């Protein structure tokens, strides 16, 4: 007997998606109607996810687990969806008749990620991962009139397919040694056979699919082009919600090894270092803000990996906190640059010129968010970095943290370049004030408050992150 009540968050989002499917069948396109509907439904979705935060139990033949960990991430994901929909009021880069489909795919992608964070069976994990990926492929392509969107989508798809293939291979290896696809069985069997290299390779290949999602080297090649080719809102969604889900499932899978594999840790350290170095170095010369943020998110994937590869409780909870920080900070950055590029075109440094005069509050939000990404106190980004780095120090990875700190300094350089564009560069010709309706101001003020408040009083969020990851210890 399945307890459907445990599945209510997912059911809610499924119904929402169905609603948009119906909307897309209506003959008359109405962007405003779609936007309002999406906003209202996703706001309710946050409420539904919050209401279910304390639920616990297993359903679908133990292949699907509802626990604190999954529920916290469901809240984060629904918040991510809500925030992204908040900035969809001017969705100019996507044809109006496709708007219901856009929302439909967004909701389905979110639903798939929710299923992903609850999955405790290899097949559920694989299927939900693929479901979310396919939604994203189409979402990238939805910007049909942009000349790069098709090529970006195809490259995205090819790399995604490759990662899936590798992952399937890894899953097969894992299954052949454990004889069960349930994570619970794997956790119980794995410590005994973890010394066999082929098992480690199995885990490593399995991780490939999640690395692809999180954009860790070497599966990061799709990121700059996908961000560049996709409409701004979709890029923001990929940078925020999809990363949160990837961090969640990485924690779940890597926790399988129980922290007993030194070799796995070394491989992950290697990937983490390359990711952040490649990301940060490549970001320096970017003029296109979406590309810059794309590379920066590769670097942040590396930082988040530091917490995960520490394989201790502090590391896992640090990574959860980091996921939250990334969600808020990345979203704020995208929010500002999307507002600065008023016509829905790709935002560049030039669009930011004189932003502090055109819209002081947006400029301030950008400043706070970029400082947060760079890890400057008192922002949530600082606390996130502190938590993952100190977890790594606990494990004795001093060298790794040192390299990460050097990377942080490099990243500060290009973040400040962006701020320079926003605060010091004067526009070539006088630009009018940015239209900032009250809703935009409120959202900007709320994000600034959230970033700073979570930096000053991180203790509650840290407790939630610790409670969420307590299941792995």
């Amino acid at each position, binding site marked *: 007997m399945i307890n459907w009540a445990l599945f209510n968050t997912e059911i809610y989002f499924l119904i929402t998606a169905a609603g948009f499917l119906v909307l897309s069948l209506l003959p008359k396109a109405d962007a405003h109607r779609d936007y309002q509907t999406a906003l209202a439904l996703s706001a309710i979705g946050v409420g539904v996810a919050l209401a279910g935060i304390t639920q616990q139990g297993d359903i679908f033949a133990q292949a699907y687990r509802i626990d604190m960990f999954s529920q916290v991430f469901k809240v984060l994901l629904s918040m991510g969806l809500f925030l992204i929909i908040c900035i969809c009021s001017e969705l100019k880069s996507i044809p109006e008749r496709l708007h219901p489909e856009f929302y439909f795919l967004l909701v389905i992608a979110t639903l798939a990620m929710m299923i992903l964070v609850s999955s405790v069976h290899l097949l559920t994990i694989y299927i939900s991962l693929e479901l979310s990926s396919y939604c994203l492929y189409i979402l990238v392509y939805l910007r049909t009139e942009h000349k790069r969107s098709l090529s970006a989508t195809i*490259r995205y798809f*090819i*790399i995604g397919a*490759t*990662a899936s293939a*590798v992952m399937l291979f890894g899953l097969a290896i894992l299954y052949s040694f454990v004889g069960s696809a349930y994570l619970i069985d794997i956790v119980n069997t794995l410590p005994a056979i973890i010394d066999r*290299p*082929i098992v*480690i*390779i199995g885990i*490593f*290949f399995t991780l*490939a699919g999640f690395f692809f999602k999180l954009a860790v*080297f*070497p*599966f990061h*090649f799709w990121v*700059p082009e996908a961000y560049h080719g996709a409409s701004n809102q979709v890029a923001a969604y990929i940078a925020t919600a999809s990363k949160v889900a990837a961090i969640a499932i990485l924690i779940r899978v890597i926790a399988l090894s129980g922290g007993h594999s030194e*070799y*796995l840790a*070394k*491989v992950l350290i*290697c*990937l983490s270092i390359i990711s952040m170095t*490649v990301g940060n*170095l*490549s*970001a*320096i*010369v*970017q003029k296109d803000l979406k590309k810059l943020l794309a*590379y920066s998110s590769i670097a942040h994937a590396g930082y988040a990996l530091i917490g995960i590869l520490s394989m201790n409780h502090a590391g896992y909870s640090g990574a959860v906190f980091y996921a939250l920080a990334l969600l808020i900070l990345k979203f704020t950055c995208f929010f500002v640059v999307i507002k600065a590029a008023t016509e829905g075109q790709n935002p560049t440094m030039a669009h930011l010129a004189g932003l502090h005069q055109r819209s002081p509050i947006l400029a301030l939000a950008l400043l706070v968010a970029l400082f947060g990404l760079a890890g400057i106190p008192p922002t949530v980004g600082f606390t996130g970095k502190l938590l993952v780095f100190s977890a790594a120090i606990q494990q004795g990875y001093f060298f790794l943290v040192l390299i990460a700190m050097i990377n942080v300094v*490099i990243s500060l350089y290009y973040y400040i370049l962006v701020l320079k564009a926003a605060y010091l560069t004067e526009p070539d010709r006088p630009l009018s004030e940015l239209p900032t309706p009250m809703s935009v101001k409120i959202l900007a003020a709320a994000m600034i408050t959230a970033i700073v408040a979570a930096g000053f009083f991180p203790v509650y969020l840290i407790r939630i992150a610790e409670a969420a990851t307590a299941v792995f210890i």
Partner: protein
Amino acid sequence: MSVNAAVLAAIAPLMAFFVTLILTRKRPWLSAGISVGAVSISTVCAVFLLFRHWEMTEPVLYTSTWMVSGAISIPLGIMLDPLSLLMLVIVGGICLLVQIYSIGYMEGDPGFSRYFTFMSLFAWAMITMTISPTMLQLYVFWELVGLSSYLLIGFWYEKFSAGQAGKKAFVMTRLGDVAFLIGILLVLVHAGNLNIVEINSLGPSETMSPLIITLAVLLIFGGIIGKSAQFPLLTWLPDAMEGPTPVSALLHSATMVAAGVFLFARLFPFFSLTPTAMALCLAIGTVSMLLASTMAMVSRDIKQVWAYSTISQLGYMIMGLAAGGYVAGVFHLTTHAVFKALLFLCSGVFIHALHTNDMFDIAKSSGRRMKIPVICLIIAGAALAGLPPFSGFFSKELILAKLAALDNPIWLIFALAGVFLTAYYTFRLIFIILFPKPGPSDADSTSIAADEAERHDVKPHPIRQTMATPLIILAAITLVLGFFEDPVERFLSATVTESLSASGMHHGWPAFMALGLSVAGVLLALIEFGLPKSRQIGFAERMPFVYNLFSKRWYIDHVYRYFIDYVIDRGVAKICARNDKKVIDKSIDTFCDGIVESSRFLSFLHAGMIQYRLIVVFATLFFLSLYLLLG
């Protein structure tokens, strides 16, 4: 109750500072009112505390923790003992009177509101410094005093020389403060805490070796040298005349420069532990006293004369303290605060009304017709010269008695010479103003005066009530303060051990000698400047070499200039700049260029064909798998 009053005294000016800084910048009169009101509260609290604790035998101590870092906790608190109570009253009173006076003096200045903001900051810093229970708190507010005096000296910042003077004052006092800070740290390291009561107990002599104590005392004395403008850091004080005259009055009497002497008195028992350092302090006080007196003999600028005289009187105080005369030094600090403030405020009236700093110009413009300032000037001048029954006589005589008790008579001789010179230059100024002559030309009337004049309307003002009242009050205090010598002495020595406070013999022969020399100085001034036939050229001015030496301030500034130009600018600074450019900047630039280049290369790699990327993916997987298999 006492603690509350002390906190109130300290907090009120701080509140005024913030309110005038943020809220009332556009309303000058409101700012002035708030500022004066706040300092009145402080003064009332101070007087109340003084009367309440008049019979005190034990200091009142109150501390709370400001912050804790590991094993070190930094306290913040209040200490009320006779010295701090007396100083509190002086600071509060003088600040109050000067601020009232400033209402008239600064009227119409565009920075009126800002002026009172800074004044409040100054009052807060000084008041809190006087009641500090620890050296660290004292140091913090000591620096705040330095900051606020920098702001006030450079108050007319659009004038280049004012900015320069502010900078000079700040940098020179900072120079001493560096030594002071090192001294504090030395005490902290060796004695383990910075509590003033404990430093002043005999504790340090047990935990610190005599050499360390001497070193610490000398370093702390470095701070005093800077703050009280003693030799060799004395040249900032005359330049500090660039500020408005009430600021000079405040700086020179009760606050900034007095802070140095206050620190000496504050740590007097600690200083007394080391006779070597005390001897050096005595020498420095003496040198400063004599040098400054000679400089004052030839100056034409009325404010500068008082500036030099401040240095020389501070030298006296330091001599007194260094000779073991705790009460003598502090009492002279008290009387000097009053009559020096009076001298500056009187001069301010002339400057305000006649738009000139030059004493000969003041004389020519019939400055003597201004009855109140002239009478007050004479009273204060007589006090400065050490004539009875004015307050200066009593306090100077205490110091001289202490010096006479020393084994070596040389200090007494120098001090007496100083007494003569002081009387001479004081009455030189007074006689010049009283008896104008068509005499020496006014070729080099100072530019300061002209500038200051431009800021006010051109026609002379009648003296304002707000300006006259403080003068009269201060003059009255000057007249009577000397007769409170015995009560003050009893009050001050209540908490200091007897051996340190015994003030030696009273009214002995040094007093009569000093009196004689003062009168001689006055007479010489009268002959040279006062008599109808005199040419108004002093004996020092007749000798070109001596005149140049005195008026160029013994070439101290030239030596500094030379040192800065040739040793610092062209030597150390040049090497540092070259190192900065060639080594540091270049290596960083090269490094950064390398990073940017690698960035270009990496993003170029990301733009390649999809096949290459897949090759990278599989190659990475292959090599890492290889590592896992073989590892």
